[in-house]
C-alpha cells in the first residue's frame, strides 16, 4: 500500500495505531524497569542509576531504539489526529440527547483526550530531563565525598578536576584528559522532586506526573486490549487472558511510574 492509501484507509490506520501503541507499551516496561533504580537510596543508588543513564545515552543500539520510539510516538500522534478529525466529521450533526455511557466505557470514549494529556506530559518530561541531559553542557556531574570526579565509564578518578573539551565536561588528572565526566542524573532527578531544592515546583511536578500516569492508566485500560482487536486477535480462548493482561498492565505500570516522584517527594527534605 502506498502511504496515501494507508492514510485513506480506516483499517490500515487502525493496524498502525495498534502496532505503534503496543510498541509504546513495550517501551513503557523498559523505561519503568530502569527507573526502578531511583528507589535505591544512598550513594550506591546514585552510582547505579548514573551508570545506567550513561549507558543508555551512549550505547548506539539503545540510542537507535530511543529515536525509533520518538518517531513512533510521532506516527501514533499524527494518525490519532487524522482519526479524530475524520471521526468528528463522520457525525456532522450531533444528537441533542445522547447517552454514550449506556453502551461504551469512559476509557474507550476518551482515547483522544487522554492521549492529548499524554502528549503534553511527554513534551514536559523531555524538557525536564532528556533535553538537559543531552544538550546542557553545564549538567551536574557526579562528585563523591572525597571530592573525586568520575568518568562516564564509572571509574573514580582520584585527585581529578573538571575541564571543558569542545564544550563538554571532561575529567582531568595532572592535565591528562581521562574522558567525559559522569553526569549526575540521579541527583538532578532527586532534586527535581525535593521540597528544599525545587520548592513548590516539586509539589506541582509530582502532581502533574501523577495525573499524567492516571491518563496512561485510562489510555491503556482500553488501548491494550483494543490493540489486539485491531490486529484481528479476537478468540474465545484468549480474550479473557488479553483482557486480564490489559487490566493488570494498565494498573501496575502507571502506578509504579507515579510512585517514583511521590516517593522522592515524600522521603526527601
Amino acid at each position, binding site marked *: *500500500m502506498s502511504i496515501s492509501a494507508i492514510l*485513506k*484507509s*480506516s*483499517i*490500515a*490506520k*487502525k*493496524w498502525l495505531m495498534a502496532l505503534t501503541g503496543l510498541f509504546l507499551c513495550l517501551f513503557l516496561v523498559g523505561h519503568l524497569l530502569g527507573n526502578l533504580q531511583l528507589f535505591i537510596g544512598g550513594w550506591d543508588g546514585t552510582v547505579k542509576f548514573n551508570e545506567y543513564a550513561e549507558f543508555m545515552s551512549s550505547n548506539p543500539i539503545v540510542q537507535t531504539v530511543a529515536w525509533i520510539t520518538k518517531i513512533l510516538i510521532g506516527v501514533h500522534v499524527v494518525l490519532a489526529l487524522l*482519526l479524530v478529525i*475524520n*471521526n468528528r*466529521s*463522520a*457525525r*456532522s*450533526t*450531533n*444528537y*441533542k*440527547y*445522547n*447517552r*454514550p455511557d*449506556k*453502551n*461504551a*466505557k469512559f476509557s*474507550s*470514549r476518551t*482515547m483522544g483526550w487522554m492521549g492529548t494529556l499524554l502528549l503534553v506530559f511527554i513534551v514536559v518530561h523531555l524538557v525536564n530531563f532528556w533535553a538537559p541531559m543531552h544538550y546542557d553542557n553545564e549538567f551536574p556531574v557526579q562528585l563523591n565525598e572525597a571530592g573525586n570526579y568520575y568518568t562516564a565509564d564509572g571509574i573514580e578518578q582520584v585527585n581529578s578536576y573538571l575541564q571543558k573539551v569542545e564544550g563538554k565536561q571532561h575529567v582531568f588528572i595532572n592535565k591528562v584528559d581521562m574522558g567525559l565526566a559522569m553526569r549526575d542524573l540521579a541527583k538532578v532527578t532527586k532534586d527535581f522532586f525535593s521540597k528544599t531544592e525545587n520548592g513548590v515546583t516539586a509539589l506541582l511536578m509530582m502532581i502533574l506526573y501523577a495525573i499524567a500516569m492516571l491518563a496512561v492508566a485510562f489510555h491503556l485500560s*482500553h488501548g491494550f486490549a*483494543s490493540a489486539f*482487536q*485491531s*490486529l*484481528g*486477535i*479476537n478468540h474465545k480462548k484468549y480474550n479473557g487472558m488479553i483482557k486480564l493482561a490489559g487490566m493488570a498492565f494498565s494498573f501496575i505500570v502507571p502506578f509504579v511510574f507515579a510512585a517514583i516522584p511521590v516517593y522522592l517527594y515524600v522521603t526527601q527534605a
Partner: protein
Amino acid sequence: MATIKGMNLTLKIWRQKDANSKGKIETYKVKDISDHMSFLEMMDVLNEQLISENKEPVAFDHDCREGICGSCSLHINGEPHGPDRGVTTCQLHMRKFNSGDTIYIEPFRAKAFPVIKDLVVDRSAFDRIIQSGGFVSVNTSGNTQDANALPIPKADADKAFDAATCIGCGACVASCKNASAMLFVSAKVSQLSLLPQGQVEREERVLNMVSQMDDEGFGNCTNTGACEVECPKGISLENIARMNREFLKATIHKEE
C-alpha cells in the same frame, strides 16, 4: 399479565421539513398510552392526533414491524432502538417507559446517513457498500446445485449464520461515537468469507467493501463496543476482528 396503564408522555421529537431545511426539536404530549403498545404504535397514536389537529404527522421509517426488515430506526432517549437490548424500535414495548417520562426521539445521526425528513434518514450508503462486494458468483449453466452438497464445518456455518442475521438497520453507526459502519460491513464480509460459496470474491470483497465504506464518509473504529451493545441482532465484535484479518491478508496478497 401487567395491567394496561394509561401512560402520559412528553415527546421531544426532531422535526425537519426536508433534507435542506434546518430542523429542530418540537415538544408533543400523548395521553393514555397502553404499555402493551410498541414504540411505533405510540408514534401512530401521536400521528393520528397530529392529523386530527390538521398538523403534519411525524415521518419515520418502518415496514415489517416484526424486527426482521431493518427499516425502523430512531434514536430514543440517547440510544438507537431505545433503552431495551436486542430489539428493534418496532419491537420495543412501551412498558419500558413510565407515565410522566420525557422521551427524546431523534433520527440516526451520521454524515453518511443524511436526514430526508423528520426522523427518516437515507441509508442507501449501506446499499452501495453491499453492491461493492456483498455478493457471490453462482453457476447458472445447467442444473441448480444443491447447496447442501457442499460440506461446511458446523462452527463456520454457525458463525456465518450469526453474521447473516444483520438486518442492515444502521444502529451500529448511530451508536458509534465515530459513526463507524464497521460492525455492519464486518458482518457482511464475515458471512460470505466463512462459506465456500464466498471464496471466489473473498479478497476483492473485503477490499472493495472497506474502500466503499471509507468513501461514504463513515468514521473509524475505536473498539468502544457501543455497536455490539446496541445492535438488535447481537452481531459480535468478533466479526470486526475477522474483517481486519481479511483486510490485511487481501492487502498483502493483491498484486497491484
